[in-house]
């Protein structure tokens, strides 16, 4: 499969002995855009960490499954190789972007530091300015000599994106890149990411809890619940016609701009916490379709339409 840049298959991750991820499936094509959607604790950020080799610092390790990037097996990489991947191949815009710049170092210093490692000493300044231009930063010169706290949220987000672009990556992973931003700025950042993806021929993984963001800006999407992929396929299709009971619940729980005459269909209960993920289908305790069949055993994604897979035991009933 040459057109797949990042391929994650049935990945399972444990943190300090607890199952945190299981059966995560993700395919990112070259130049494509994929959304990962899920609530707190669904394991979307953890999936990003796994793809960047950052599990070690939180005491996690991959226990099963496979992950390849551009044909390279990610699970057997030594730390030195990981550093190269993070530097040159995968750009990462972290969840906490607004506080992801060293507060006591000027923006220019931090950018130059990253640029020098990739491009060497010469003309680092020039490259920094170029990068800020690429992210449509107004008054680049002034930004370079500012401290992070002097910038607005949207500007800091742009700096983080610029930093992710330093190594000319093939893949940009944006973890909740717009969550803390106002809608008008969120809009601008999403448009920027989309433009960058097309112009730099770079794939984009957009992690978010907001379905409408994925619907508007991604080609395909993956819905995650309690550490597993429950449904994946073209974003527009899933949003219009969700199949998995959890995807349905997620969409039904969102208030619509059209204004509803009835109550929101609220799921009862809350997602399981790490270490309390049940056997079998993780969603069974909250699922209106669940029967005893759902509790226990191994689950896998079943194709239901071209490019669409759902992980559910009671597909027949659900589809009716």
């Amino acid at each position, binding site marked *: 499969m040459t057109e797949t840049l990042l391929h994650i298959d049935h990945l399972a991750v444990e943190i300090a002995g607890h199952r945190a991820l299981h059966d995560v499936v993700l395919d990112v094509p070259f130049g494509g855009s994929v959304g990962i959607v899920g609530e707190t604790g669904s394991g979307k950020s953890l999936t990003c960490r796994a793809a960047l080799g950052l599990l070690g610092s939180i005491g996690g390790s991959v226990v099963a499954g496979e992950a390849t990037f551009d044909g390279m097996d990610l699970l057997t990489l030594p730390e030195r190789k990981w550093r190269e991947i993070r530097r040159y191949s995968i750009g990462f815009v*972290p969840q906490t972007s607004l506080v992801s710049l060293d507060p*006591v170092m000027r923006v220019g210093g931090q950018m130059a530091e990253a640029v020098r*490692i990739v491009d060497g000493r010469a003309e680092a300044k020039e490259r920094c300015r170029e990068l800020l231009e690429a992210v449509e930063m107004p008054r680049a010169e002034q930004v370079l000599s500012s401290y992070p706290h002097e910038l607005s949220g949207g500007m800091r987000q742009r700096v983080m994106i610029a930093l992710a672009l330093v190594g000319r990556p093939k893949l940009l992973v944006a973890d909740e890149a717009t969550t803390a931003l106002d809608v008008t700025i969120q809009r601008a950042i999403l448009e920027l990411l989309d433009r960058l993806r097309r112009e730099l021929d770079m794939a984009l993984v957009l992690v978010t809890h907001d379905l409408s963001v994925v619907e508007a800006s991604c080609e395909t999407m993956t819905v995650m619940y309690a550490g597993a992929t429950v449904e994946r396929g073209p974003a527009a299709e899933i949003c219009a016609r969700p199949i998995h009971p959890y995807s349905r619940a997620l969409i039904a729980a969102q208030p619509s701009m059209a204004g509803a005459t009835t109550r929101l269909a609220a799921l009862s209960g809350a997602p399981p916490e790490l270490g309390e993920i049940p056997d079998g289908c993780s969603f069974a305790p909250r699922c209106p379709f669940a029967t005893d069949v759902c509790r226990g055993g191994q689950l896998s994604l079943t194709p239901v339409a071209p490019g669409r897979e759902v992980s559910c035991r009671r597909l027949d009933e659900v589809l009716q």
Partner: protein
Amino acid sequence: MGPSLLLRRGLQAIAVCAFVVVVTFLLVRIVPGDPVSAISGPQASAETREAIRAELHLESSLPSQFTAYIGDLLQGDLGHSIVQQGKSVTSIIGESLPITLYVVFGALVISAVFGVAFGLLAAVRGGGIDMGTRAAVMVFLAVPPFFLGLLLILLLALEIPVFPAGGWGEGWPQNLEYLVLPSIALSATLMPLVASVTRQAAKDAMRQPWAEAASARGLPARLVVFRHILPNCAASVITLLGFNASVLISGAVVVEAVFGLPGLGQELVTAVTERNYPVIQGIALVTALIVVAINLAADLLSLAVDPRIDPS
């Protein structure tokens, strides 16, 4: 816009100085009963009592005593010793202060350098080194500087004679030798604090999203530690050093007694046994003013290292 932070800090320091002056003034006058007998003791001669009375302007009312005290202060006159043939307190302090400052400065440098090094190492390496550092911090916090001084004398002066056990006054650079052990002994109070604050600050910094973001960008660990983590600890360490200036000077008093250094501490202890009130008062005032000055300096310095504090 309110007054700038710099100005506010300055005003606060001045307010504290004013309080310090009032407190030192009142120290002797809050004694229940007759301050003169409290200071001189019941068996003192009539001349001594008269000398004390005159020295402290006790014959006039409290407000006029205070104005007289302030007036003397402004002329740099801290009064005169009751013993030592009425030597001026200013000259007593002038002779002994430098020695104390040498020791304090030595201890400050040792604590800062080694404390930061150990703290950073413990935070970055973790595991056994971390546990060891934390245990050492707890033990050393409980070791009074005079006890460490005694141990140092026992080990490095008596058992293995590397340094002199005590003494002073053969001129430079021999005096340097006399400063080594006292400085080490004194740093024992501060170094564990510096180490633990550095460790905590570094651990906090490492947990910050920006530290992880730096690794996620593929920056080498060494660079992250020295270019990012360390500068972020600086403000905490400076604040701590400023905050503990008074602890350091207190420790110096004791350490001087152990090593027989003729510094402020020795003068103070002598003055206490002789109830030499003007000297005590003068030393209390001068040391407090030094502490206020160090605090102010630390405040200003942390403004310089942490751009997030807006000086206006």
